[in-house]
């Protein structure tokens, strides 16, 4: 019984931190309609700043904590003013979500550069000896955590319910257009909400820091916990967020104690998926639904300028010949290997482009399918001597099955909730990859994977893999270029532009979405298998959530809805560390920063931007500019 109560206390302590992070999510969501995935970055930033102020400058704990919070709030305000607020007026909510993911990656990369990858630990505020209350041991830091959480909730409640500023914030949350009419400066209130969320996150980070180990990517864990909490509890409601946080803390503790610590995350995520199916808006519904008639489904859809067929064919031919001849001038080494990796990832990117660029379905869990494909093929090859080709097909089949099962969830969801469900799926696969250590080798990974082989031929050199991947990529691009110009592609684009109108025109929305989802899952799986065969090694973090976010970054940077564009994004992000060795540690930062920049400045991506630029150049030289039709939706 004491054990049970001890667990209960532990769960509440952890849960109250989750609740605090969840509150930050909820605050930004209610005012802007966006899930700010960068929330966890504020926690880790404040905690690490606090650590540095203590360790490097010798500040006392209280001063360092305040300093850490102040600096994080300043960083949050600047980031908000430069990226988040300007983005809101141009991007759809789903794109804002991805931009926030870019901000998180950027913060992670920045922290990696500033603090390195080693873990840090902070001393507790008031000593290591736990307090005993009625036979239950409570760590003193836990009391600080609960106290801070309660205080923050009380202050936030007072601010929102009782003050003029709070009323204005709530007005923006409920109806931004009417709020403007009342003379409320909506962008300023948005920035205020974002900064306030940064403050809450920073406070959470500083008080939890002594109870956990801090690393550059701990921010992602904070984000994920807070996001799972808020998705379970109900993002549009503060009581829901708090409830979700406590529930998640309890589930984690009890699952760790009674099942296994390896599966505690999987259980929490399973719970989340059940909630998403059963009540997509969370356990506690909002008192008022935010007016979403304007923005929720809106996508900023710029017309993707495409090359004319003859130009496209000639360019593609030249590119293909160039790519085939490239290894003759390149030394076999890091650069060739990076190209192979980019080519392998491009297979997954093609699927993601079909799903996101053409069908408009956001997926933040694509690496989950890479993991399924990679582990299935690798495990079959290592443990059962199954031929790699068969293993690849088995992985694709398994991915297809998983995609169909997952689509029970995803077909019901759109936009934001779809992004959340796929993110949860990716995390779930992630935690299984860690949990099923007998099959996957656990966190340390699966070793001794053979090379890919067909018949008797082994693709055991980077050069042979290069040509294999080149042929595969070319065939797939050709195949999809055809499919996209056929009725399937038109149906997908109709769904993206207006699902209801597409359905009214007789497009079988469910079938098309399912097909696009299945295609993307199988391609990701294929990509994951080849990835494992190429590296002869596979670990969960190679195909984890960071990979999913990187894929999205590559897609957006390269250009959504262009098929070949993502290859540019893929090559750029893969080659950067190989070509500029000194910049390797900046890779994460750049990939996040580029993603954010692309969303703000170049929504059509590198490829789309280049084609549009070329088009303008030719047009101004040849004939009087034909403005008719430009800027119109296709």
């Amino acid at each position, binding site marked *: 019984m004491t054990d049970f109560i001890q667990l209960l206390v532990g769960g509440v302590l952890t849960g109250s931190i989750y609740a605090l992070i969840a509150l930050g999510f909820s605050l930004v969501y209610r005012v802007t309609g966006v899930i700010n995935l960068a929330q966890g970055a504020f926690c880790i930033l404040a905690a690490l700043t606090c650590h540095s102020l203590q360790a490097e400058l010798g500040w006392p704990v209280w001063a360092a904590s305040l300093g850490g919070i102040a600096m994080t709030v300043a960083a949050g305000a600047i980031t908000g003013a430069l990226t988040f607020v300007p983005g809101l007026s141009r991007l759809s909510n789903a794109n804002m979500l991805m931009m926030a993911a870019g901000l998180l990656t950027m913060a992670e990369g920045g922290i990696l550069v500033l603090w390195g990858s080693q873990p840090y630990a902070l001393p507790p505020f008031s000593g290591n000896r736990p307090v005993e209350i009625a036979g239950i041991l409570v760590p003193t830091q836990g009391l600080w955590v609960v106290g801070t959480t309660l205080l923050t909730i009380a202050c936030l409640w007072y601010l929102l319910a009782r003050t003029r500023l709070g009323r204005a914030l709530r007005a923006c949350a*409920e109806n931004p257009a009417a709020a403007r009419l009342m003379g409320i400066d909506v962008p300023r209130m948005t920035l205020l909400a974002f900064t306030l969320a940064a403050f809450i996150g920073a406070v959470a980070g500083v008080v939890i820091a002594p109870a956990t180990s801090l690393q550059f990517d701990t921010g992602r864990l904070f984000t994920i916990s807070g996001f799972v909490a808020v998705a379970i509890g109900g993002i549009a409601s503060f009581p829901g967020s708090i409830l979700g946080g406590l529930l998640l803390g309890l589930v984690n503790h009890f699952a760790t104690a009674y099942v296994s610590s390896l599966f505690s995350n999987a259980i929490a995520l399973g719970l989340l998926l059940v909630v998403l199916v059963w009540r997509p808006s969370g356990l506690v519904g909002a008192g008022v639904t935010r007016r979403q008639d304007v923005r929720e489904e809106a996508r900023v859809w710029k017309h993707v300028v495409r090359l004319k067929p003859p130009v496209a064919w000639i360019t593609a031919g030249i590119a293909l010949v160039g790519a085939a001849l490239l290894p003759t001038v390149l030394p076999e080494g890091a650069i060739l290997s990076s190209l192979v990796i980019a080519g392998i990832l491009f297979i997954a990117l093609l699927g993601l482009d079909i799903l996101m660029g053409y069908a408009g379905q956001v997926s933040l869990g694509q690496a989950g399918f890479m993991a399924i494909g990679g582990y299935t093929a690798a495990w079959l090859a290592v443990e059962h001597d199954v031929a790699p080709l068969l293993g690849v097909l088995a992985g694709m089949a398994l991915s297809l099955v998983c995609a169909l099962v997952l689509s029970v969830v995803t077909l019901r969801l759109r936009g934001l909730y779809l992004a959340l469900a796929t993110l949860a799926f990716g995390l779930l696969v992630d935690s299984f990859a860690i949990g099923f250590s007998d099959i996957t080798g656990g966190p340390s990974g699966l070793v001794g994977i053979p090379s890919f082989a067909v018949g008797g031929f082994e693709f055991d050199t980077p050069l042979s893999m290069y040509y294999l991947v080149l042929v595969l990529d070319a065939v797939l691009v050709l195949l999809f270029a055809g499919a996209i110009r056929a009725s399937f592609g038109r149906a997908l684009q109709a769904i993206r532009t207006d699902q209801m109108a597409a359905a009214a025109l007789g497009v079988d929305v469910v079938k098309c979405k399912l097909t696009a989802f299945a295609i993307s899952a199988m391609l990701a799986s294929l990509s994951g298998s080849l990835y494992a065969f190429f590296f002869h090694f596979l670990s969960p973090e190679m195909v984890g959530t960071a990979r999913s976010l990187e894929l999205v970054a590559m897609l957006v940077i390269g250009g959504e809805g262009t098929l070949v564009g993502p290859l540019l994004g893929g090559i750029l992000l893969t080659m950067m560390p190989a070509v500029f060795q000194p910049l390797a540690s900046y890779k994460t930062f750049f990939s996040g920063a580029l993603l954010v920049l692309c969303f703000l400045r170049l929504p059509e991506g590198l490829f789309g931007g280049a084609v549009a630029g070329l088009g303008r150049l030719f047009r101004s030289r040849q004939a009087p500019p034909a403005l008719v039709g430009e800027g119109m939706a296709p």
Partner: protein
Amino acid sequence: MMLDVRNLCVGYSRNAVLQGIDLTVEAGEIVTLVGANGAGKSTLVKALAGLLPPMSGTVTFDGRRIEALPPAERLRMGLALVPEGRQVFAGMTVRENLTLGAYADDGPAAIANQARRTQEVCALFPVLQQRMDGVVGNFSGGQQQMLAIGRGLMSGPRLLILDEPSLGLSPLMVAEIFQLVQRLRDQGIAILLAEQNARSALAVADRGYVIENGRVTLSGLAADLLHSPEIAARYLGVGTATVVSQAESARLAHRLQQAMQA
């Protein structure tokens, strides 16, 4: 002259919706904007409230150019808009909605003004007084419209712009809204009324403007407009078919015949 709009052009991205609007409102006047759905009435009132930036042209209020001012500044000068579709804050109480209506007033007398105006609004709409702490979401359309007008009055406007106040209300409620418009004018508030319901609007207004495709096509005394055959044919509906001249109907019949033969 209280409000003077000169050659106002407003649009979304590259397409101008309003193409050179000229319009004036004198103190104590009721002026109505009549026009079909999509003619540009809502765009015009949004531009006047500061929600849409004009592409060109000037808006002068009380002798001061206001076309570049933010909504808050215009509210403080005494120009308020009651938007189309009411747009009340449904999750808040009546009191909170009214308080937000006075948000722009941040001067030293803000609290006193707010209390006084709340009383005035309650005197005007007793039903709001009774449900002061009720959440607005489950009010009837008429009650929400009253609240929207009350909220607009909270900033103490001298010119109140009403955008389609009769939209979606019962005939009884519509009549009440138009009576209210006259009462507000009697209290010294000038009214600019954008309405599809041209007959009722022209009946209470002093002057009227007809807007078509982003331009003022006709303007004058409301009484004259009400009896103008053009208005009758286009905006006053079937009941006035007799007003259409004999020549007109003969011409129409001729065209119909031609069309059928072709």
